């Protein structure tokens, strides 16, 4: 559905040049829900604006929804929906009018029905007469999303769609996105800062940092690959720290062992299976345990490892 090679964008302005995106390759298959993760300024929005024909890439090529981005932007536009990070409604215009115009611009058949259904789905009923300025932040966000969906695009780009939504609305939107995929086979490419969202909603994640994709995979793969499990051992006697560390460092599954104040913190591959072996190794070294805890890595750990300090230290 999306096939991009070497996509890059440099901004040149009064304050110097910014290499916002530096050669992004990505492939998204039909029906996939792909999440685009990265810290502020990583280049997510810039990439999306290029893929949606709003911004000309300074380098690279892309095929979006079956058409070449540069040669055939009109055909691309017909097949995609885009919800911008900052929305796109006029404060003075009633929500219903914005929806109606959007449907007309896309040439949607059965406008009124489609809009009514969408409003019901996104909890916008009864708000259509109100000017956009008189909607709450979350209501306006849901209106932005409705505007992007009005023509049932086969490919949907969402730039931080759930920022500013309450937990219930976020849940509703996730459900709606999943049902669009189930019913119409909609492909979704979304950016998010919410790791639970990436985890719960996305089939696959791309992590971008400083304009480059630094990691890609399913949420589970990423967690497994990048972080490892964390095992925390509290020792019955702080004096046992040295022998404990000694015994554990030799264990093949342990990547890293840190000791502090009678607590040993281990980074372990496949922690669940290795736990017994670790305990046995401590036992034979004569170290007694007060408590034992195993934590699976979250995407938070992935995010930090890939985009945070450790990554830049390595570079």
């Amino acid at each position, binding site marked *: 559905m999306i096939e991009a090679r070497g996509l890059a964008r440099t901004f040149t302005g009064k304050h110097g040049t910014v290499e916002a995106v530096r050669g992004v390759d990505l492939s998204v298959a039909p029906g996939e829900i792909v999440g685009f993760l990265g810290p502020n300024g990583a280049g997510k929005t810039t990439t999306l604006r290029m893929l949606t024909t709003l911004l000309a890439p300074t380098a690279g090529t892309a095929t979006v929804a079956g058409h070449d981005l540069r040669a055939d932007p009109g055909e691309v536009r017909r097949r995609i929906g885009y919800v911008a990070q900052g*929305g796109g*409604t*006029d404060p*003075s215009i009633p929500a219903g009018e914005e929806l109606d115009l959007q449907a007309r611009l896309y040439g949607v058949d059965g406008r009124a029905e489609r809009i009514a259904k969408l409003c019901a789905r996104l909890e916008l009923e009864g708000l259509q007469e109100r000017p956009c300025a008189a909607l709450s932040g979350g209501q306006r966000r849901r209106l932005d999303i409705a505007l992007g969906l009005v023509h049932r695009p086969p490919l949907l780009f969402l730039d931080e769609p759930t920022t500013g939504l309450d937990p219930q609305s976020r849940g509703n939107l996730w459900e709606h996105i999943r049902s669009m995929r189930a019913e119409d086979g909609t492909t979704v490419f979304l950016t998010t800062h919410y790791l639970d969202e990436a985890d719960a909603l996305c089939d696959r994640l791309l992590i971008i940092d400083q304009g480059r994709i630094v990691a890609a995979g399913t949420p589970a793969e990423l967690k497994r690959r990048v972080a490892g499990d964390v095992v925390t051992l509290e020792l019955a006697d702080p004096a046992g720290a040295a022998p404990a560390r000694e015994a554990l460092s030799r264990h093949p599954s342990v990547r890293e062992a840190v000791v502090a104040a009678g607590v040993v913190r281990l980074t372990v591959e496949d922690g669940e299976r290795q736990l017994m072996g670790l305990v046995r190794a401590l036992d034979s070294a004569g170290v007694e345990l007060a408590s034992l805890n195993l934590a699976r890595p979250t995407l938070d750990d992935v995010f930090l490892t890939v985009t945070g300090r450790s990554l830049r230290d390595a570079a």
Partner: protein
Amino acid sequence: MSLGRTAADTRLVFGRYLRQTLRSKVAVVFGAVQPLLYLVLFGPLLSRLVDVRGFGAGNAWQVFVPGVLIQLGLFGAGFVGFGLIGDLRSGVVERMRVTPVSRTALLLGRVLRDTAVVAFQAVMLVAVGLALGLRAPAGGIAVGLLFVVSLSVAVASLSYVLAMATRSEDAFAPLLSAVTLPLMLLSGILLPMSLAPGWLDVVSRCTPFRYVVDATRAAFLGDYATAAVAEGALVAAVLLVVSVWLGARRFRAENA
């Protein structure tokens, strides 16, 4: 992009912005009243000046109303770029540009709305002028209105080009006055350039609106078959074509 599609999209965009204008009561009332203020508060001064040498033939209103008409086109349409900057900021422009809508229609729909507003004000202006003592042939008035309409199409397009290029009120506003103020003064809108010293007259002849103003005045006097009208028509036509072309080019640019 087919012509039919562009026309249909232009109608949609025009409808949106016209409704937006009509929704704002203040804009409607003030828009109608503003040109009348010129007639009521400034016009009477001129009737005293008629006898000054070089003021021109005809009664004072025949000189003054055409000037205010062209000024309406210049300022009414000149400021429309502010609206576009607002839309750039709110994301409305990107939202529309991501749809398959014709880029040219995004320009033309707006420009037509702006022109409709100016045309409405121009008709009001002439009507009140007639009530206050303006005497001019119907044909001359029609030609004058035609000039105002084509001028506002051109000026609105240029205003959008400038707004797209600057993208912020802070940069757009000073640039706009830097361009429109000298052009207005040099066009002889307020007082006819026939009163000007030689050098000023020469400078004035280097600016486009001078010709349009002279042509409109000639039309109001009923002198249709004159060089002034022909020159004015030519300048207005060239201005119209060049401005719309520039505007369309800007709106079609990939990074507009």
